[in-house]
C-alpha cells in the first residue's frame, strides 16, 4: 500500500481503486488541538484540489482539499465525538474519509513522502 501527499498537507493511502484521506502529522501539529471536523457526506463527489470540508482547531479554521477526484464511500464518524483523534493519530485513527477514485492515474501525480517532506522543511 502506497501513501502519497499533497502540498496542502493531506495524505492519501491507496487500497485498490480507493484512497483513505487525512491530514499529515505536520498539519495536525501546526493546527494544534482540533475541535471540529466538517466531514463530507457519504456519496458526495469530490473534485481534485477543491475544498471538501473544514477542520477547526481552537484558534484556526482550515479548508480540506481533495487529493483526488471521486466519490466519498466512507467517512470517519468517530471524529464527530472525538475530533482530537486527528491530533493523536493523524495518519491512522484520525483519517477523514475514503474516496473511490474516478481517475486512478491522479494518484500517481501526488507527492512522494520525500518530496512532501521538502515542502515542510
Amino acid at each position, binding site marked *: 500500500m502506497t501513501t502519497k501527499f499533497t502540498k496542502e498537507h493531506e495524505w492519501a493511502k491507496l487500497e485498490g481503486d480507493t484512497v483513505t484521506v487525512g491530514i499529515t502529522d505536520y498539519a495536525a501539529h501546526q493546527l494544534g*488541538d482540533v*475541535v471540529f471536523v*466538517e466531514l463530507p457526506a457519504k456519496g458526495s463527489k469530490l473534485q481534485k484540489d477543491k475544498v471538501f470540508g473544514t477542520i*477547526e482547531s481552537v484558534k484556526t479554521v482550515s479548508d480540506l482539499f481533495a487529493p483526488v477526484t471521486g466519490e466519498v464511500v466512507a467517512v470517519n464518524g468517530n471524529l464527530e465525538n472525538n475530533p482530537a483523534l486527528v491530533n493523536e493519530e493523524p495518519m491512522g485513527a484520525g483519517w477523514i474519509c475514503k474516496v473511490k477514485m474516478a481517475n486512478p492515474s491522479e494518484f500517481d501525480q501526488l507527492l512522494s513522502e520525500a518530496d512532501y517532506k521538502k515542502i515542510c522543511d
Partner: protein
Amino acid sequence: MNKTPLCAVHEKSGARMVDFAGWYMPVQYTSIIEEHNAVRTNSGLFDLFHMGEFWLSGPDALKNIQKICCQDSEALSDRQIAYTPMCRPDGTIVDDLLIYRWTAEKFMLVVNASNMKKDYDWIASQLEGDVKFVDKSSETGLIAIQGPNAEAILQKLTRQRLKPIKFYWFTSGKVAGIDCIISRTGYTGEDGFELYYPAEHSEKLWNDLLEAGKDFGIKPIGLGARDTLRLEARLMLYGNDINDETTPIEANLNWTVKFAKGPFNGSEVMKKQKDQGVTKTLVGFELGKGPAARHGYPIMKDGKKVGEVTSGTMAPTLQKNIGLGYVPPALSAIGSTFDIEIRGKNYPATVIETPFYTRARS
C-alpha cells in the same frame, strides 16, 4: 516586530511564536487546551511585557483620572485597583484598562499593547492642571501567575504575606529578590497575581517562578489559552468585543460606569443610553455541537442579519461552543434564540448567562 525580554526563552522552550499587535509573542507552548486546563486546575505563567504602563501623578492626578475614566477612583482606597473603560465624549471606548491607585496623587494605568500609542496620545490630549504623565512601558516587565496554586507558588519566593491581599488590591515587595508590584489581578477567571518589575530582571523572575512551581506542575501559557480563559470568564478583548464604535453601556459594562461621581468623558451619552435604551447589546450565547462561532460571523434572525459575533471559541472547561456578540435588545434576554451563519450555513444559538465560567470561591 517588538520583542519581549523573554523572547529567546520562549523560542528555546519550543513555543510557537506569532505577531500579536506588532509583538512577537508565544501563542502556544504545547497545546492550547492543555495550557487552558493547567490554569483552571493548577497554575500557569504568562509573559505580558507587551502591556503598557503609564503613570499619572501630581496634585491634579485624581481629577484627571475621574474625567477620563468611567470608574470612580475617588472611591478607591490607596493600593486598590479598578477595571475601567476609558471613553471619548461621545461614549465610545478608547481602551479598557486597570487603574492602580497608590495615592490620590499617584496612579498607574495598565493599557492594552494594541492601543498603547492611541491611549498615550488621547490621555495627553485630555490632561489639565498640575499633573505629570509618563510612559514606563518599555522599562516595565509584567509576568502573571494564574490558577488555584498561584498563591502557594508565589509565596515561596516572597516574604510579603499574600493571603491578606484581596482580589483587585496590590502591594509592593520583593519576589525572588526583585522589586515588584504584586497585584492580585488577572485575565483568566482564576485567582492569581500580576507582577510588575524592572524589565531587565525578566529572565530571573520567569525562571524562578517556573522553578518554584515545578513541583505543582506549573506551565508557561501562550496567547491562545489566554484568549479561551478570558472568554469563558466573559472578560472583554479590545478590538473584538469592544472598540472605537461601542460604548460601555452597549457592552454591558454598566457596573464600571459610575454616574454618581459627576460628569466625565462620555457620561452624558451613556446616561442617555442607560435611560432610553441602546440599539445593540453584547450577549453571551452557546451553540450546539459543530463548528465554533468566530469573530465577525453574522448573527441571523429569520433570514436577516441582526448582529455580529465578536468572540467565539470551543470552551475547553465548559466543553461547548460559546461566543459573544452584539444583537438588538429584543434578542438579548436569557433563552433568546438566533442563528450564527458559518460558511453559508445557519447554526442555532441560545443566549445564556455570563460569565460562562465562574470559579468556585473559598
